[in-house]
């Protein structure tokens, strides 16, 4: 899929949570996040993290020099979950106010 788009002249970046699948499928550019499947952009309501992942991908459009380059985003799932829980707790408190 990604290679088909790139072949038509449109630069592509994919977000991956599975390095071994990426190594097999050889997309032109990829950004790796060590997150759970189905949560490539992080955790619910964590807008900053969701944005950070997208911006890492945008940056890779500009910086990737060779086909197949994989950029690892310096984030961890445990940290993302901790921050997500704190955000949800803060939102709940806010929602409970009259």
């Amino acid at each position: 899929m990604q290679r088909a788009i790139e072949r038509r002249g449109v630069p592509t970046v994919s977000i991956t949570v599975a390095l071994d699948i990426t190594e097999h499928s050889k997309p032109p550019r990829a950004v790796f996040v060590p997150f759970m499947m189905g949560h490539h952009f992080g955790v619910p309501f964590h807008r900053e993290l969701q944005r950070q992942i997208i911006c890492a991908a945008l940056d890779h459009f500009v910086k990737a020099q060779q086909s197949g380059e994989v950029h690892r985003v310096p984030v961890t799932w445990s940290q993302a979950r901790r921050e997500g829980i704190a955000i949800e707790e803060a939102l709940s408190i806010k929602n409970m106010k009259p």
Partner: protein
Amino acid sequence: MTANSNDASQLRPGLWAAINERYPGVMITKDDFIPLAHLKKPLTEARLTFVSSAGVQPKKTMPFDVVHPVGDYSLRRVPSSSAPSDLEIHQIKYPTNGAARDLNVIFPIERLQELATEGVIGGLTPNFFSFIGYQMDPPTFEQTLAEEIAAAVVADGADIALLCPA
């Protein structure tokens, strides 16, 4: 087994081998890299499209066939102006507990809308493109759906494409 099969930074190492063992031949392996296409304009002027295998689709469109034994090779267009409340997920092959509460964790349509409004990117294509993964016939996938979406991405005027294989 590959160099990255057991990379400890993955939450599910060895995923390629695990799926291919259960469904022999369904996983794609390429022997070479293809040449990079080059940016024709700065990101601040580039129109972005988003391509997702998460099974996200506008409500009231034909649901993806998530139990077809060979796969559903159809695509859905998702207007990039959609609100999350306009959309729903039809896919059972990945955890959707996060997406059920905030779709942006797998289909970050609101974040992309914000980045376009702020001028970080030049804009969004009228449509994003959605399908479901876990197809059992890679050649059919590559010869039909992949080419159909690639053509649609070009027809929608995309300068760059962000993909998210769920």
